[in-house]
């Protein structure tokens, strides 16, 4: 019982008075055994002394690490708002935001036309720019950046290219001694924004893929003997590390794990025909190329963007928001957070830790116009 009040240190003078009263109370009640109960109740009272607006965020596992960096600094700057975050997946972020279960849904993919028709009040607001790497595990070749293209990857994932020394891969990588070994393509089994942007790259660069599989957060993967499915981005890293001769698509926020596992990073063929690496400059080049074409509702794909050095798998990370919130206080809290995320939150001190890039100024303006619609 003696340590119990220690948990209350660090609160204001008002709290101190309550604390003194509590100590007296606990002395009196020590024998009766209800002290703990009274203590818990008292803490509950002090906790709700100033009513905070509570916001809940859920969705994309790619955005989750960034939200984790944001929350402590945002709540420190805005003590009136409580923000809790969970990582569930882009699909869940979209669905729960539409249903009004959460105020902020996080998604790697923008809302589809079908969803927009059904729920015209929904907003897709970009918060940052992310990208995806193609990683592989080729013993002896992981240090070299293999050159791959959309049609080659589409061939691998549809079972038309089965060996690493296939002539399409060899032609893109002259002088590289490619092994005569079966390729193991790895895909995500869970609904994933990463699957969305990867399959979109294949669909935009390879007409036959667009006609058969197309794109989505979970697609009907063609039957490839030996192809495997993994759960989540971390599951992808584990699967590729455990399986030599495999290839996978992994979000850049997992670049540190990929490097630790010693996997290779591929250079991808962009729209201009140049092989580019997922560097900050190349990702920014892709983002810059769509700035002028981004519509007011900001639902646009940055995949396979034009531009000499534009990395082909780049996307906006979206906050999915219902423009009609339950009440005015909640609406203004959501606006406060989103505006904070676009200004202070787009600082490189947060973004560089997850390998994201800040939004261009023109996009921030568009996002702010959308945020103003929340009521």
């Amino acid at each position: 019982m003696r340590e119990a009040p220690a948990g209350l240190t660090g609160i204001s003078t008002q709290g101190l008075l309550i604390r003194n009263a509590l100590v007296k109370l606990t002395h009196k009640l020590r024998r009766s055994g209800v002290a703990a109960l009274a203590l818990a109740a008292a803490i509950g009272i002090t906790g709700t002394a100033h009513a905070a607006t509570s916001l809940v965020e859920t969705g994309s596992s790619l955005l989750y690490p960034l939200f984790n960096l944001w929350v402590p600094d945002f709540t420190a700057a805005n003590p009136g708002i409580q923000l809790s975050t969970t990582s569930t997946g882009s699909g869940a972020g979209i669905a729960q935001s539409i249903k009004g279960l959460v105020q902020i849904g996080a998604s790697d993919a923008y809302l589809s036309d079908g969803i927009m028709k059904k729920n015209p009040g929904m907003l897709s607001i970009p918060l940052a720019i992310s990208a995806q790497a193609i990683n592989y595990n080729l013993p002896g070749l992981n240090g070299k950046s293999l050159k791959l293209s959309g049609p080659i990857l589409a061939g691998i994932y549809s079972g038309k290219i089965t060996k690493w020394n296939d002539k399409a891969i060899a032609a893109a990588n002259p002088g590289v001694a490619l092994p005569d070994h079966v390729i193991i393509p790895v895909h995500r089994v869970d609904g994933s924004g990463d699957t969305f942007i990867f399959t979109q790259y294949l669909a935009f660069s390879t007409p036959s893929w667009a006609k058969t599989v197309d794109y989505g957060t979970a697609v009907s993967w063609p039957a490839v003997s030996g192809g495997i499915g993994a759960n989540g981005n971390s599951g992808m890293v584990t699967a590729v590390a455990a399986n030599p001769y495999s290839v996978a698509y992994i979000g850049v926020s997992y670049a540190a794990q990929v490097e630790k596992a010693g996997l290779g990073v591929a250079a991808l063929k962009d729209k201009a025909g140049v092989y580019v690496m997922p560097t900050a400059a190349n990702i920014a080049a892709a983002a810059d190329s769509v700035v002028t074409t981004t519509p007011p509702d900001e639902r646009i794909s940055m995949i396979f963007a034009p531009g000499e050095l534009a990395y082909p798998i780049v996307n906006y990370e979206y906050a999915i928001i219902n423009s009609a919130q339950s009440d005015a206080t909640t609406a203004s809290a959501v606006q406060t957070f989103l505006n904070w995320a676009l200004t202070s939150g787009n600082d490189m001190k947060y973004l560089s830790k997850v390998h994201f890039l800040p939004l261009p100024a023109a996009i921030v303006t568009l996002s702010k116009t959308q945020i103003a619609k929340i009521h």
Partner: protein
Amino acid sequence: MKFRPFRLSLLGVSLLIPAALCAVILFLLIYSGQAFIYNGLGFVWRLTWDLGNLYADPVTVHGISVPLGASYGILVFVVGTLLSSFIAILIAVPLSVGAAIFLAEAAPSKIRPVLSMLVELVAVVPSVVFGLWGVAVLVPFIGRYLAPSGNGYGLLAASIVLALMITPIIATTLLDSLMQVPKENRESAFALGATHFEVVSKAMMPMVRSTLIGGIVLALGRALGETMAVLMVSGGAINILPSSIFSPVSTIASFIVSQLDSAESDPTNMAVRSLAEIALVLFLITLAVNAGAKFLSSGALRVSNRK
């Protein structure tokens, strides 16, 4: 009639469980109704699972709005579920029978309680822990030493993880009933000159046959419905049937959990309805397995007639 509050309240409580079961079935039936109409009977036999294009306008088929190109076939998952569970049972039964007999007959009485407690402990390990072990140890092992393709994710890994999870369930139920075999039966068999092996196989095992089958059914129930551990090691196959024991598979339960996220972003809701239909199929499979096993053990009616 006399008013019996105690009896009535017990009746209410005992009705609650079947009522909950009926409510779940009713919900699944009503919720998946449109999916039944759209998918037809081919649902169970079709190979292709395709959510369709969720980013294009939905089309109307037979008066039902569905995503363009949607096709829901679940043969791959039914096959994956049945194969992984039955292989798991094949591995688990000899292991658990051996373990139970050892604990009942051969283990020194001083260490028997410790060992049987350890076996029981394995039964309460959360399945995700087995999954992690599978990913970290089993999958690389299979990939390096067994699988010709070098890929460890698949049917064998899923079956072994399941087998480990269900072995203690069978072993503990069997051990309990082996310990309850009357001393007289055992000793008279010894007195007739039977060897220790004959005592166990001829005098004791026949008496615990129905318990063994009961334990297997319980274990099979857990194996059929196991989700997370299987999802982590099965290799998540889609649109392709396993061609060997090393092939990636998907089970119904793990497939439902992996697809739900994307299914929820289907504006027509048909994907979630089809997942509810799969859940119904899983329910029917477990029901059929249970009924079959009850019939085999012919212990179904024994509960009610107590002597």
